[in-house]
């Protein structure tokens, strides 16, 4: 019995979670709380008006919104869009120095100190979620006090993007380890997921059939953005049910 338990624990320890996110568009209101939560968590700098006018803002997550129809029968389609953490990521093979690759848990990771700033990845990303640092970020004192010490500041010349809050994944693993237990569903909540007032977002291990995210994927409303491109995103959208 004891042996079995030990074996189980070992199996558990070897288990590699496959991270995924499900966003229920029937819940999402477009409030953009997730956008500010992300900036706050990840030290995403503001660009200022002049840089913004050149399209150089960094929004690791944004709300795409498109109008459909004409007044008065007008609708708006909108969705939060962040790095889709593609399994077949178009950004990866074009990087000459392997600064971006998919890790064992399915995260599309960006190694800032390997990045040489060719921006090929950003150009090849169909979701336009990669951002080049044209300048070193600046925070007028004492705004720098808000910076999260868990997340590195990106220097000029490198590309950055949503990490699925990789540092929170790491922290959750360390916490679970310290408590001598396995990571449980819901332990990892990226900043956007944590913040969402409508509880539209769910994050977890898609290979764990009991996880919330796995259940959402099986809801029958689930699809991916630009699915036809074959990028196999790890972000799934549950379409509005009407």
């Amino acid at each position, binding site marked *: 019995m004891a042996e079995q338990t030990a074996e189980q624990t070992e199996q558990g320890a070897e288990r590699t979670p496959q991270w995924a996110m499900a966003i229920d568009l029937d819940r999402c209101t477009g409030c953009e709380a997730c956008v500010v939560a992300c900036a706050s968590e990840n030290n995403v700098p503001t660009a200022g008006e002049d840089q913004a006018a050149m399209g150089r803002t960094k929004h690791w997550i944004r709300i*795409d919104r498109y109008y459909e129809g004409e007044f008065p029968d007008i609708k708006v389609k909108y969705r939060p869009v962040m790095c889709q953490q593609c399994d077949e990521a178009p950004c990866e093979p074009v990087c000459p120095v392997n600064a971006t690759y998919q890790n064992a848990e399915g995260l599309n990771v960006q190694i800032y100190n390997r990045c040489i700033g060719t921006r090929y990845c950003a150009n090849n990303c169909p979701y336009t979620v990669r951002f080049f640092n044209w300048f070193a970020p600046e925070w007028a004192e004492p705004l720098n006090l808000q910076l999260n010490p868990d997340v590195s500041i990106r220097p000029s010349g490198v590309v950055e993007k949503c990490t699925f809050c990789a540092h929170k994944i790491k922290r959750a693993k360390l916490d679970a380890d310290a408590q001598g237990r396995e990571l449980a569903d819901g332990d990892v909540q990226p900043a956007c997921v944590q913040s969402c007032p409508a509880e539209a977002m769910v994050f977890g291990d898609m290979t764990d059939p009991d996880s919330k995210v796995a259940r959402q994927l099986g809801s029958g409303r689930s699809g991916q953005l630009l699915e036809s491109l074959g990028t196999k995103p790890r972000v799934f959208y549950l379409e509005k049910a009407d």
Partner: protein
Amino acid sequence: MDRRNFVKLVGTASGGAVTGACGRQAEEIIPLLVPEESVPVGVEQWHPSVCGECSAACGTLARVMASEREIEVDGELVRQKIAAVKKLEGNPLDPVSGGRLCARGHASLQSLYNPDRLRGPLKRVGPRASGQFEAISWDDAITEAAGALAAADPGRILFLARARESVRSENIARFLEAVGAPPATSIGVGDFAAERASSERVFGRSGLPLYEIQDSSLVLSIGADFLGGWASPVLYSRRYGHMRQGRRELRGRLIHAESRFSLTAWNADRWLPVWPGGELALASAIGHVLLGEQIADTPASVVSIFADVDLEKAAGAAGVPAETIRQTASELAQASAPVVVAGASMVRRNSADAVAAALALNWLLGCVGKPGGVIPPADPLGVLARQPRFSQDWSERLEQAAVVLVDGVNPAYNAPASQGALAAAQTVISFSSFLDDTSAFADLILPDHDPLEQAALEVPAVSPSPSIAAAGEFVAPLYDSRPIATALSELAEAAERPFEELTVGQAVSTLHSAVESAGSETSASDFEATTLRDGGWQGQPSGKPPATPGTLGTFEIAAKQEGVMFQAYESPQFGSGSGANRPWLQELPDPTSSALWGLPVEMDPATAERLGLVNGDNVRIRSEYGALEAPVYVNPAAIPGVVSMAVGQGHASYGRYASGRGANPMVVVGNARDEKTGCPAMGPTPIRLEKIAGGARLVQFSRQDRDLPPHRV
């Protein structure tokens, strides 16, 4: 409390003494409230706090970690270790936020660490509104302010503050009592005066009703942009999510009536684009049709307000086809759990009537006090009875005032017509942390601590159950500011008036005796410790507060106002304009126009075409009250002939991120008021438009309004 929260929440009680080994001089100047050795580098603590950005009063958690800042001591730069707030999240134990936050809540961190915060008290040296100030010591500032107060006729002391039920409000009330001045008044921004007045009329109970939309099958909201900022956006967004997808068996539907395509309209299954000012006509018409459906036992006074409505005429005044009204009413009548959310996100001349008529529809639907329906306001907790309330004559009193004290409101911005009176007042004293539009008129600025730097206790505007949000102190103030209660008590002392500050701890003990009196096992000190540790207290829902219609009176439906109309509105990120100095919010795309670092005038494609305008062109807008110039956003969802603009930009003075940026729509809206409550209206105001050359640029995050294939799932 789930495990995660258990891990996160730690007690806030900690002394002010510095016991750190390092003992550098700088640390003695501004002691850490959380002793530094208890915040090891890289280790986080979560302290409960209360969001002060809107009257929802969400309970939050502040992530506190060790940090460093540079300060000057005797002309030398030293690094000072401090406990800094790194992030704000919702407090999962709080019944309003439920662990979530809105964009403004997150960005309130950029109030605490805003580079333009005032470092200490200031005295004006140049003309009013010139922005010329010089530093003054607290002692001198208090002496000067107390002198002005002592010299003034107490009846002509005017305190303008936010209408919040909080310890802060109670202290303002105590202070005014001590100096013999009349109670504080709000300026009618963000305090839902029309909604409160309507609840009094329709339910005989004051306060804001609670909408149980999470259990509704069909929600009709009239005038209430409840997902975009009205009343309690986080609470209602949570409830909305549940209404849509939280129940296996039922997906609730939403019909939204408003004169612009707001966030709530985005989310609606059907949007009823009602002509601004036509909300009363719409509610009345729906009520009239519902009467024919005979669906509930309705109090006679309610029946009487809808009986004589002429449907066709009302439909015309609302700008909504009679057929759509009939269909909406019949869907409501057939719904298993309908509810009508009644509000005035944009106050009109007839808002008190419009909100009352919409609220009264709930009597016709039989959903008052029912699951999925509306719960009339419960009895107040009675702990903090004296919050500032909107009083109609504030602007007249401002004109007569000898001393004007201002806290948390910005009349020079939200009611630009008040600038003349502010310029003429004998003495203006501001407690603002920023040199904003109104404090630019002040003679003395006695800057308050940031909300995150002080203890707080507030009753939320609406809550699923009786509750308060409370916070102790956990980070030391960055600058030479003082909590307003301290400043008031010093002012009272200098004026030799008896003033006793109400502390958060005392308010919690009062609450304890109010709610735990009957056979309670919790001791007062346990109660206080638990309340401050959890960030608040929550009682049992009071069941079904009894309600009967008060005096409803008669409603008069005015004909539709013809011509091009202008309306101002509060956007989700800027609220009444206070969000404009947070860079995160400036760089957050405006949901409607996708604008960054500026807000455009929104108009429909036909009006734009008639004037030869495309996105980014500039217009001059003129009304009988004033004029503004701003870039245009051609909004495919704007009602033809209705021009809208969000409040937020156009601050004459509000720090580097907001000052001199864009235009203030309130200048054009003018001083129209809701006729019954006197609450400032946000339009409709007849305007004239003309294209102008040059002007401000429209910076958009996304210039594209229409999807291009293959951008779809």
